[in-house]
């Protein structure tokens, strides 16, 4: 009887996840040329122009994930006991989530573009040759940061403000300076949470598509795996090839997750009930 209640979610998972995923793998193993082979994978990984997308994606996803998580930790840490105008600040930080990728990308083009406000300001400030910030690697980095920072920040604020403040106080009284409190008490306690945030932001960044097209240079510097898959599917109409690329991309994301979760398992505070219900 109880099993029946699980049924809707099982059906949902089967239809929305297991079937498409299985179909993708199945399709990727049946190349257009016919038969059953790993030819698509070989073609993708052996073609330097295609295989390069993996390196391009990683070189975007890894640094911007590190940067996003690092900044989110710093900001959430400073805000852990509340600040002035907190609601306004949090709203401003969270707004990009509500606006959607395309609008944010347009905004970035407008603000950081060659004739955008940012460069105009630099000109006024006397910078003769402002650097190019959009339609290249930097543009994608900015877009991904704007999109994923709020999410990461909110998640970490929950973790950090959930740590019992008397732990910090007792560490102080026992002789720890603020930095030692962070390193010896707060960091070990939030590290498992930071790992989860890192994993999620990494996966989102690795799948970057709209930003790479809209504020990047989709034919060159920011030709990510997702763009390669898109081109295979909708420019060359080679679904099996597109599926193979998508599977490789998924494999990379899973590998990243595996590494992060492995490291998380080895953290001293993993599995320890340290974090309360969240902010106040």
């Amino acid at each position: 009887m109880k099993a029946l209640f699980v049924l809707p979610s099982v059906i949902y998972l089967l239809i929305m996840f297991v079937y498409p995923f299985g179909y993708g793998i199945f399709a990727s193993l049946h190349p257009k040329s016919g038969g059953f082979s790993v030819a698509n994978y070989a073609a993708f990984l052996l073609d330097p122009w295609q295989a390069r997308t993996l390196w391009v994606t990683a070189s975007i996803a890894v640094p911007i994930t590190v940067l996003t998580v690092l900044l989110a930790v710093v900001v959430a840490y400073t805000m852990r006991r509340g600040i002035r105008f907190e609601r306004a600040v949090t709203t401003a930080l969270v707004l990009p989530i509500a606006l959607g990728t395309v609008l944010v990308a347009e905004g970035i083009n407008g603000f950081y573009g060659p004739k955008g406000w940012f460069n105009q300001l630099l000109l006024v400030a006397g910078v003769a040759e402002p650097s190019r910030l959009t339609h290249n690697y930097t543009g994608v980095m900015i877009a991904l940061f704007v999109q994923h920072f709020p999410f990461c920040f909110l998640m970490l604020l929950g973790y950090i403000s959930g740590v019992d403040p008397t732990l910090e106080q007792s560490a102080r009284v026992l002789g720890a300076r603020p930095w030692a409190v962070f390193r010896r008490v707060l960091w070990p306690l939030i590290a498992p949470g930071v790992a989860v945030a890192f994993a999620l932001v990494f996966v989102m960044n690795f799948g970057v598509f709209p930003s790479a097209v809209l504020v990047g240079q989709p034919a060159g510097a920011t030709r990510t795996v997702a763009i390669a898959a898109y081109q295979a599917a909708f420019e060359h109409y080679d679904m099996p090839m597109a599926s193979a690329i998508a599977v490789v991309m998924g494999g990379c994301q899973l590998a990243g997750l595996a590494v992060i979760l492995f490291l998380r398992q080895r953290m001293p505070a993993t599995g320890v009930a340290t974090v309360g219900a969240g902010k106040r």
Partner: protein
Amino acid sequence: MAAAVGSLRFRLTKRFGTKTVLDDFALEVRGRELITLLGPSGCGKSTALNLLAGLLEPTAGEIWLDETRIDALPPERRGFGMVFQNYALFPHLTVRDNVAFGLELRRRPRAEIGERVGRMLDLVQLGGFESRFPSQLSGGQQQRVAIARALVIEPRVLLLDEPLSNLDAKLRLEMRAEIKRLHADLGLTAIYVTHDQAEALSLSDRVVVLRDGRAMQTGTPADIHDRPGNLFVADFMGYRNLLPVTVTAVEPDGRVLAEAAGLTLHGRATGPLAVGRSAVAAVRPEDLVATDEPAGVNILRGCVRLTEYLGREHDLEVALASGLILRARVATPVGVGATVSLRVAPERVVMLAAEDSAPP
């Protein structure tokens, strides 16, 4: 262990916005003394402790430890030990690492840390628990770790913030005795915050009763218990019967005669009282004794309205003829509706000046 003696003098004011939590609260704690800050929640006792620890900044005032002014020092440089109500153990560290925390920050050699941690855990009877995590310990064991962690650094002053209030009744009595033993053995200067009068009486060398950020009375446990200086302290220390009376005579030996509707009470004063002024006669329920005499000096007669069985005794709610309600504690059961006479010894009646504001 080298006993750490610190005498502490302070005078502190703390305001949060317009609210004054601590109003020029001054105290001198002698070396090796255990002093309790006692009061209801919101009286400022925990704020005082946090100010002493350096976790809050005073609005005004100063703190002197022996001959050094320390109120500008951050908490980590005061060398105090602190035990928190919720223990505040580091959940990611073992018992050993929790206790070693303060010594590691002081960069003591490894061998010394191991030896001191071991000795301290033996002292709080937790030998053998070194590798456990806090979540694997009972509440009482966690509190022992918290005490060991605070004591191992040989603090100049130990601060305890309601350390027993999260424990169940039986464990609370055990830990109370344990804290008393540790204090006696180690000769510590300690400041203990609690709202529990029994804890304050049993542990302290001196007690400070706080109300709204001011000291209402400072004295030995016996002083506070037997000679409350004002209505608030009397009420807080269990004088549940506060009878409004008018003073008729004050005798040279301190005896006070007073009257109320149909009552004549003899008692003793703990402060100045003037003849003809209104006062309050404070009487503990357990000091009322059933008697056969129907009337007389210090005899109160009324009708039992409610009884509560307490095991060894019975709590009575008695309505006097004047309408006043009296609470008494008697050894033998009495039925509801019965008329009883109760007598109280004159030395058990504390005559206090009436306050303009009613007691809380």
